[in-house]
């Protein structure tokens, strides 16, 4: 099947779903306050694009997202390189990591809000905690997958440990790190929105959704917020995938495999 045909079919699928939602609502099969017509939700979502308060909220959410993800990278990549290249440290820390990782990070929201209040710091702290794991594990995993022959060759030529790390291991691991960052980007958005919904006040996309759900007949606004959240997720993922393809045109399969293996846990 050609690329064009695929795109056409995909568009048809979107229109079908849109049409069904519209029809179900207009025909009165479900209560209109439960599922407003898709066209109304979409027009409300577009209307919000011109609403400066709403856009400020999106900005606040994205700021927390950027800071949290950036901090997580700054912690996880060096730590992953350390754990991946020094087996002793890896063995020592592994148990602690294995105990911390399965904890669902949304469960930390009550504790962190007690400690830090319900502002940006809470969001950033939670995002950082949750995003460290995928990046860390992908870094360690990628380091283990680097070509041993290339490393041996460099060593045979008398290059030191740092040179091997910089010339072979880091370039070899970079695609895995990028895949980890892509997974973490989605996780970060989940936590930003979750924290905001629970906080219920301040500014942010989640707060918009939470407040809309409390008002009567607010479903349209809630769904418009959800459309925005989904669009944001799609754009972020799209940009990251595009960046990965540009930066590392080789080994798409390996990256997928790493993502499938190490992507669990939020």
């Amino acid at each position, binding site marked *: *099947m050609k690329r064009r045909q*695929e795109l056409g079919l*995909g568009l048809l*699928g*979107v229109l*079908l779903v849109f049409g069904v939602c519209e029809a179900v609502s207009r025909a009165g099969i479900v209560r209109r306050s*439960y599922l407003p017509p898709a066209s109304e939700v979409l027009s409300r979502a577009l209307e919000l694009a011109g609403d400066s308060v709403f856009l400020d909220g999106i900005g606040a959410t994205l700021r927390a997202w950027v800071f949290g993800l950036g901090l997580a990278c700054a912690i996880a990549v060096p730590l992953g390189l350390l754990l991946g290249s020094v087996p*002793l440290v890896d*063995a*020592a*820390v*592994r*148990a*602690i990591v294995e*105990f*911390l990782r*399965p*904890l*669902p990070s*949304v*469960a*930390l*929201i*009550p*504790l962190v*809000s*007690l*400690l830090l209040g319900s502002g940006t710091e809470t969001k950033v702290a939670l995002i950082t905690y949750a995003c460290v794991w995928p990046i860390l594990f992908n870094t360690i995993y990628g380091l283990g997958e680097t070509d*041993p*022959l290339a490393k*041996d060759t460099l060593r*045979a030529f008398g290059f030191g440990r740092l040179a091997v790390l910089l010339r072979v291991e880091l370039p070899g691991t970079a695609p895995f790190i990028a895949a980890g960052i892509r997974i973490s980007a*989605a996780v970060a*958005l*989940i936590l930003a*929105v*979750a924290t905001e*919904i*629970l906080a219920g006040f301040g500014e942010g*996309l*989640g707060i918009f*959704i*939470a407040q809309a*759900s409390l008002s009567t007949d607010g*479903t349209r606004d*809630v*769904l418009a917020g*959800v459309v925005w*959240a*989904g*669009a*944001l*997720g*799609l754009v972020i*993922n799209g940009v990251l995938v595009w960046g990965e393809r540009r930066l590392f045109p080789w080994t798409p399969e390996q990256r997928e495999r790493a993502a*499938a293996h190490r*992507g*669990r*846990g*939020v």
Partner: protein
Amino acid sequence: MSRDGAVAVRGGGVRQVGRVAVGGVLLRWVVLAVAVGCWEVAARAHDSVYFPPPGRIAHHAYELWFSGPVRHAFFTDAAVDNIGPSLGRMAAGFVIAAVAGIALGVAVGRSRRTYALCNPVLQFARAVPPPALVPVFVVVLDFGTQMQVASIAFSAVWPVLINTAEGARNTDPLRLDVAAVLRLNAVERLRFLLLPSALPRIFAGLRLSLSLSLILMVFSELLPGTANGIGFTLTDAQSRSDLLTVWAALVLLGALGYLLNTGLLAVEKRLIGKGRPI
């Protein structure tokens, strides 16, 4: 240097690797014990309200949940009232998501056309951060178990669905031809061809869904309006500034997450180890 040389070097290291592994396990536990010990000492020295010593957390968790009568298998009423419903909702949501995801995924992945038709919608559904959907379910289903199970199922279904579709789509065309020659009917094709070849992918999806279910279970219980569950225990303790209970619930959730993931990995190992065709 030849490839064989590299292999030989690795082969010679097997015994050493074995010894390192045993030492590693030992090291792991020692380091963990030391870390917990340090926390205990530091927390007792500081006497901070926010970071109670692990010993007290463990004791509190025991008192709270596991000091019940023998006929309840030592579970207390608090455990029966809170852990039970949480696990039930999570199990219900996860099972619905898994069954629906695998069924729909196979349906979508069987033809390239259907896959192309559904792909953009699925990608969008997956891109929505799941907690954003919970308020929608609150509006439609009101607070309570229905809403929680629905949010868990609806959020956890996408990874299974997309991964299953992907797995079913990538079935070896040669095998499909063989199946056609052997005149396998639809059920047989599903049983012997599509499901086995999609199985590794399905499990990758199930793992993601499992952790999503746990997250959504907690999240939907953290919302005001719930009356029981581990998440409710957390918010309730938070509002009373009862840090010990908060920490105990966190430890419990971590242990649950670990157990669930380990269990799923064991099932995966069994199924894929045996049933996978070469």
